[in-house]
């Protein structure tokens, strides 16, 4: 069971830092401070509003009173989920997750289909000595654009001499987004299912591909005793200790976009950059809004599955314009959701979005 993260709405002093931090405030009707206020007074909340939250976490990180506004949003959503007041697209994602254990409703039987791209076999984690699990995550198991990521990371880890296995069809959605959508019951089921699988196969260590999985496994699965890392942490270390050396050259100007769940929320800023700077001829640029103040791409908090009714300039587009201004040729990131949201506007501007593992695989 997930330990209930108690929010502290009553301690809110209405300083407004949350709204000022929020990537959705101003351009959408979403005002997180106001929602907290309404929660304080138990006032009626417009049903459409809580769904704008991208769960980037900036409000919670910056709240001086530890009110945890992003958790307040989850609480509001939970209530709405229980009442069934939930956008249809999200409803579909939840129902799909219920049936197929992934929000896209893709066949669970094809959860390991990404391996077809590999020229080597990855054993089931139970067959490994290290009991080190590569946790693939739904989007990377199914989306054709993202399926290359597990394949690339597998190649890189193998090159670095690391043993690992997968759960294959036994893996269920990590539930990070499900919890953020407010479906706590479903989240618990996923958590139980995954934990049971971890336990059954004696998993000792988990390498995640998506920062979203890492976040939930690390922070919201309770004390599992399992070491959880993002693959960039592992790979950066491999590069540092010489286990792998990027040999090829990548003569491009690359700008790195910090994913919220990797950076802001989990403090992993340097490892992805270390990987990129280890590549010959790669010129690493920085957004003026980077690291802790990186702009959210709006892919989190369920926003991957549905888009709000709003006509405003999307953050992904803002991001791409910023990248173009810095004369970047490639936008690198370390999160599949960021890849998906950034790619569309990037293509329009003639820029390329690459997950870090894609760049590394190219030069390995």
């Amino acid at each position, binding site marked *: 069971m997930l330990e209930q993260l108690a929010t502290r709405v009553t301690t809110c002093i209405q300083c407004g830092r949350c709204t000022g931090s929020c990537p959705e405030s101003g351009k959408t009707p979403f005002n997180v401070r106001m929602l907290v206020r309404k929660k304080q007074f138990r006032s009626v909340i417009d049903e459409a509003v809580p769904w704008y939250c991208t769960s980037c976490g900036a409000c919670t990180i910056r709240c001086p009173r530890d009110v945890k506004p992003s958790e307040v949003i989850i609480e509001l959503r939970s209530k709405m989920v229980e009442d069934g007041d939930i956008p249809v*697209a999200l409803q579909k994602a939840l129902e799909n997750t219920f049936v197929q254990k992934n929000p*896209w409703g893709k066949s669970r039987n094809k959860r390991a289909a990404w391996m077809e791209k590999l020229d080597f076999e990855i054993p089931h984690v139970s067959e490994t000595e290290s009991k080190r699990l590569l946790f693939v995550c739904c989007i990377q198991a199914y*989306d*054709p*654009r993202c399926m290359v990521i597990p394949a690339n990371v597998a190649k890189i880890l193998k090159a670095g001499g690391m043993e690992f296995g997968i759960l294959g069809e036994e893996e269920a959605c990590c539930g990070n987004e499900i919890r953020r959508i407010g479906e706590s019951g479903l989240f618990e089921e996923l958590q139980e299912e995954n934990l049971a699988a971890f336990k059954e196969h004696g998993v000792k260590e988990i390498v995640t591909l998506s920062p979203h999985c890492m976040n939930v496994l690390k922070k919201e699965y309770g004390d599992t005793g399992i070491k959880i890392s993002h693959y960039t942490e592992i790979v950066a270390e491999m590069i540092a200790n010489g286990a792998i050396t990027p040999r090829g050259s990548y003569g491009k100007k690359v700008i790195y976009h910090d994913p919220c769940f990797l950076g802001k929320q989990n403090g992993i800023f340097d490892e992805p950059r270390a990987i990129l700077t280890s590549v010959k001829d790669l010129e690493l640029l920085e957004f003026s809004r980077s690291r802790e103040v990186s702009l959210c791409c709006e892919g989190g908090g369920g926003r991957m*599955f*549905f*888009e709000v*009714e709003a*006509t405003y300039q*999307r953050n992904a587009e803002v991001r791409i314009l910023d990248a173009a201004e810095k004369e970047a040729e490639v936008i690198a990131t370390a999160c599949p959701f960021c890849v*998906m949201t950034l*790619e*569309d506007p990037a*293509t*329009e501007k003639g820029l390329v979005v690459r997950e870090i593992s894609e760049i590394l695989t190219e030069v390995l």
Partner: protein
Amino acid sequence: MSYTLIVADVRQGVFGEANLDSLGIASLLGKEVYLVVPEGAYEMNEKMADAVVKVKAAEEVFLNPLNMGNILEQVFGAHGKPGHLVFCHSSSGAESAAYAAGLFGFPVITDVSGYDRERGVFLKSYYSDKIFGEFKAAGDGPCVITVRSGSFRESVLEKSFTARVEAIENVEIAAGRTFIEYVEEEKSDIDITKAEFLLSVGRGVGNQDEIPSYEELAGTLKAVLSGSRPVIDKLWLPKARQVGTSGKTVKPKVYLAMGISGAFQHIAGMKDSDCIIAVNKDAEAPIFQYAHYGIVADIHKVRDKLKEIAKA
């Protein structure tokens, strides 16, 4: 069992094309073909059946499944029970077929899209066409079937003579259900999920000024214009026209995508369309992986050419 009885699919005075499928399977079944239609000015080729039974009743009465029992009883009374009772797999056909099967205790096989004459088995879709079942009625009694539109048209055999005409004079009208009126669907804005043919445009249209000319093409082709997110985001088309996870999920018969590269969210909203045709100048565009037909070309040129040919 010497004949096949077809219940005609009619609506608002029109003898629909779908009847050709009923006539087609009847030809395959190889027995005399009887066609039951309401009396009225229906345009049809009367050489397709051996006999046409004209029911002297209003079309609405004919289409009410509760009345179908009485009509059929009168046919059976005159000719005995048919070998097969054929309906179109349409809104009314399927309704009346089921009701009739229940009423007379006939076996029923619906949505038939094939018939193996040798083995006498009907092919019926299962699991959204992922599997087909070969079905056969138990026993030798009459069997109700509904046929899938477009499945048997080619098998229609024109008879060498005009069908003989019979009539049913009085139909007992059931009280349980009465027709009130036809309702055109509300047209405040077009519901793209209901359209059979969508012409969908994407980022590839380039700019807003091009939109009217695609609207024009949609008009010419009698398609409904829809769009992918970038087009909606830029307010070139109203939000209600958006196809994709953030817009509507559509399953038209034909989805003609022009200048849409095929973002994942978009694909999710249209992949179940019966027929997807993609036009894009980028041969590598992901949409081609989902399309049934593809054209690699400049979409504006294709647009102009289509208009030109269609108008000619």
